């Protein structure tokens, strides 16, 4: 009972805040609505028992990605200039894509196996074993990639002449 209430509450919050992302005029408001949508999704994950995924959703998307969004939006200092650009065509495209996604979700849901006892969602231990066992190389290579990206970002964003050497 309490699960059903939580689920419908979180689902409604997710949909409402997702609508807010596209409907709000103020870009900062849009980002805050996205934050609410992410939080509600994290709650849904937790409700499914996928605690690790919920945690990552909090740490990665809300902790890092959204803060970055917020920085960019505030740095760009967007006025309400985007409003007239929202033409009917892009609205129609949005409705169309949403309808297609909804249809796909409906098909997926109707073909889903009957609710039984699902496999237990992997926890931190299983994830850690996988990450440092089977995927050790991939895990380590990611850090090489990030190092290369950081070097590149610093190189390209350095302004002006270097100090005279």
């Amino acid at each position, binding site marked *: 009972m309490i699960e059903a209430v939580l689920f419908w509450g979180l689902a409604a919050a997710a949909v409402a805040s997702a609508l807010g992302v596209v409907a709000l005029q103020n870009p900062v408001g849009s980002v805050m609505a996205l934050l609410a949508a992410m939080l509600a999704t994290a709650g849904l994950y937790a409700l499914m028992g996928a605690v690790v995924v919920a945690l990552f959703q909090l740490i990665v998307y809300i902790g890092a990605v959204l803060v970055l969004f917020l920085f960019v939006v505030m740095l760009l200092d967007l006025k309400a200039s985007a409003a007239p650009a929202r033409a009917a065509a892009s609205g129609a495209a949005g409705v169309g894509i949403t309808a297609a996604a909804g249809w796909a979700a409906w098909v997926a849901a109707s073909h889903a196996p009957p609710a039984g006892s699902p496999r237990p969602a992997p926890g931190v231990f299983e994830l850690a074993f996988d990450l440092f*066992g089977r995927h*050790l190389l991939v895990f380590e290579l990611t850090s*090489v990639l990030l190092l*290369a990206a950081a*070097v*590149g970002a610093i*190189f390209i964003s350095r302004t002006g002449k*270097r100090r005279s050497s």
Partner: protein
Amino acid sequence: MAFSIPDVNLASLLPEIVLLAAAAGVLLFDGRAGRRRAAAVAAAAVASSLATIPFLFRGAGMTGFSGLIVKDDVTLVFLALMDLAALGAIVLASGGAADAEEGGELYGLTLFALIGMHLMAASRDLLVLFLGMETLALPLYILVGSRRASRDGMEAAVKYFLLGSFASALFLLGLALYYGATGTAGLGALSQTPARPSLAFAGLALVTAGVGFKIAAVPFHMWAPDAYEGAPVPVAAYISVAPKVAAFAVLLRLGLSLPGPDPGFWTQAVLAMSAASMIVGNLAALRQSGFVRMLAYSGVAQAGYMLIGLAALPARGGEALVFYLLVYLFMNLGAFAAAAALERREGGRLQIEDLSGLASRRPLFAFALAVFMVSLAGLPPTGGFFAKFTLFKAGIDAGQLPVVLVAVVMTVVSLFYYLRVVAVLYMRDGAERPEIRPAAPLLACFIGAAAVLTLLAGVLPGEFIREILAAFAPAAL
């Protein structure tokens, strides 16, 4: 759940670790003297990676990380080719313009890209492959835009970045579909018929498209002319050769993993890409007046020729492809080195017309450039002729006659633009052209060595092919 420690065998990645240490180390160098030291360190790291290859060659090969990294003889040949290309790019860059503002970062990024390519060639897993591809791509985007004062360079870098990101997204989507179809990201799953064949093939098609971007095959070639022209010439030289070697290593691995010799869907796609690249690349190259832009379209066409090797796969296609890549390495790096030597003096973009009468003033230089052009066109007695010959022969033996006919016709078309350069060099009077200073000694040596090797590959092709054949012998069995 028991924790199984993977069979790491870190020695299998020793060259890459050395390269990584050097890549991080050269970032510490600064200023003009530092730049020279950075070039030396980077060249030493690449040379040490190159030096390990003869010891491993014809050995048992190296396996690491429970089979995620496999360095067999075929892989080692590809690694040697890309190390040579990186060495060439470092030599070209070390004679860079004196007012360049960058320190050791250029060499660091070059080495990062080389690490990515090593991983691409040595991995048997799409996930590792993807990370290798990104480790290759990100430094290259930056390198293309490394002359930040130039608007063209920045524009080229942004174009390259956007199209490259799109290609990476395609690859990633393909990886997801492949994983969904086979339950693994390893390429070994290709040898059996997957449970959901259409899904697996859709994934494979997207993966091939993502890799096809790296070789600039039509229809994924849009970035090449702008990126080559906007980039500093040493970077353009690097991009034109090294990622092609890595991407062909991947495509060869894909092709060899596919079951059976039957010309299936993948071969058809490769054939279509090959024919389109040859036609579009050669016809577009005809109309170019800029030297580097002409080389860019020529590179698209050359990728088309090389794809024939993949279409001839279970048979001799692999050897022919590797031999072609080897000769391509010499002749293309040589042509770009010549462009680098000239561009520095003339300022601005090098036009083909600027080469007028070069033969009477700098006969050796003009001769080397003519050798590269004749070899790219595929005329004897240069390596380019034998490379094309073995490739076309492999194609005919595999029953891919139509695409070989397209290749022959397009080779004739390509004679016009390659030999136009030679004609301008030798038959045009360039008295009004500015005086040309001699090239830097290192650059001159490099151009000379590339020209000699291009000629040697044409005079003694057997010596070059034998080692490649030996590498492929176990794979063919």
